[in-house]
């Protein structure tokens, strides 16, 4: 399957886990990281849970690299903005009228922890879960097959769509459309590129609808699947546990907020 995906194929215990087990773990980590009090919770969870799990899943290097490449613009921006423009506070140093504040830097570091947690958490899931097994497991717990169809189809058509957009861009350029220059020229280039792209793909809708209808898309029969997904009683229990942890975190946070 040549789908648009971050999946990294490896042989590991983490890859073999049921997709929903990993999904509920992802949720629990996300909720815990954002609701638990304490400023360094994000760093703690990444360092002691996500990174060891990534090592177990043999994707440590990919995870660190991708997390960094997605996070650094945020990290840079939050540190610059929040430390330099904090307003009143204790200055770290003063130089040519620039004085970063201690409180701002602290806030920035807390934010960086949250940003890295969110990125690394989602990426760990995306890298170790095959999109098609995720869909099958979602269907098994009762998600309508139309939703599963939308997700799988989207992942498959995005690469061909990006190619189509570039083809149209090249075609219009070869007809003399200017796509570089000042803002006005670039804005004018926009419409001649997107109209063919969108109109052309909307024309496909009809064909695709007929194609899936004649293949029994609207059938009520229970479908069978080529891919088998391993599941164990123990994993089902662990999944419930993760969900309970997530709920407890939210409840604890609300209670803590109300009491203080």
């Amino acid at each position, binding site marked *: 399957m040549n789908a648009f995906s*971050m999946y990294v194929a490896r042989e590991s215990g983490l890859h073999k886990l049921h997709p929903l087990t990993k999904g509920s773990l992802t949720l629990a980590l996300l909720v815990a990281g*954002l609701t638990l009090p304490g400023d360094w919770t994000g760093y703690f969870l990444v360092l002691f849970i996500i990174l060891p799990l990534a090592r177990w899943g043999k994707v440590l290097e990919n995870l660190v690299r991708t997390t960094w490449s*997605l996070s650094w*613009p*945020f990290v840079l*921006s*939050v540190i610059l*903005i*929040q430390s*330099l*423009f*904090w*307003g009143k506070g204790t200055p770290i140093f003063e130089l040519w009228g620039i004085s970063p504040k201690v409180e701002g830097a602290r*806030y*920035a570091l*807390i*934010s*960086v922890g*949250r*940003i890295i947690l*969110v*990125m690394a958490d*989602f990426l760990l899931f*995306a890298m170790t879960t095959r*999109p098609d097994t995720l869909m099958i497991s979602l269907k098994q717990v009762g998600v309508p097959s139309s*939703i599963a*169809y*939308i*997700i799988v*189809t*989207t*992942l498959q*058509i*995005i690469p061909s*769509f*990006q190619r*189509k*957009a570039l083809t149209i*861009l090249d075609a219009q350029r070869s007809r003399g459309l200017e796509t570089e220059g000042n*803002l006005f020229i*670039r*804005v004018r*280039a*926009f419409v001649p*590129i*997107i*109209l063919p*792209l*969108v*109109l052309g*793909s*909307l*024309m*496909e*809708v*009809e064909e*695709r*609808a007929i194609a*899936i209808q004649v293949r029994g898309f*609207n059938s009520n029969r229970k479908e069978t699947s080529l891919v088998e997904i391993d599941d164990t009683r123990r994993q089902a229990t662990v999944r419930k546990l993760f969900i309970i942890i997530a709920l407890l975190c939210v409840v604890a946070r609300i209670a803590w907020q109300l009491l203080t």
Partner: protein
Amino acid sequence: MVENIKKEFSTRTLVLIPIAIAINIAIGELVVRLKLPVYLDSIGTVLVGAIAGPWAGALTGALANLIWGLFNPFAAAFFYVAAVIGLLAGLAGKRGAFEKEAPRWLSVLVGAVFVFSLTMFIFAFTNATTDETGFTTYPSMAELFSSYAPIFIVAILAGGAIGYFLLQRGGYAGIWGLVTGGIAAIISAPTAAYVFGGVTGAGQDLLVAAFRASGAGILASVMAQGAVSDPFDKMLSFMVVWLILRSLPARFKAR
């Protein structure tokens, strides 16, 4: 109610949604490639809302961001914002915003009011004063107007011109876009401020920095940044969809 929702999700709608999500991503990337100062990453979502209805629009928005989140978790955190955008586009479609032709004077009025209030908003923020106790006072509108009168007159004229040439006869779609953008700015700010420390890692951060420098809090700065960039962006998205729907052959629209 349930019957109505079911009717929205015909096989055609189900086929349309993945294509719409791909349109979101393809155009979003094209905008980056052309270096335009907007996002325009919800055109597909608005399109589904306009063609199929509010629930289909909301589902498209939510799924688009969640799927995008498999590659860039930043998008996933804002899935509820995208759902609201799709929902509002659907409501706009039900009211005929994408079909009715607005008179051109209305477009001029909308453009002028929008640019005027945007200018007022920015000045109100940059002229706000914070005293020692952290209490922020904003200048009164009349005061602002009298001290910056020439700028406001230019803003009104520029807004009118934008309305006349850009909105043209799509005034209704433009208004819905502006309102949607305003709502999106308000509901996305808490997540942006709490989870991401108020930054997007892109050019818009300069605006956040400017508002922070004027003494505003983090949440207020993020909201202000959104209020400056989101309504314009969503207005453009709604206008592009209006343009697309006008260029579609009648055969497609008839179904």
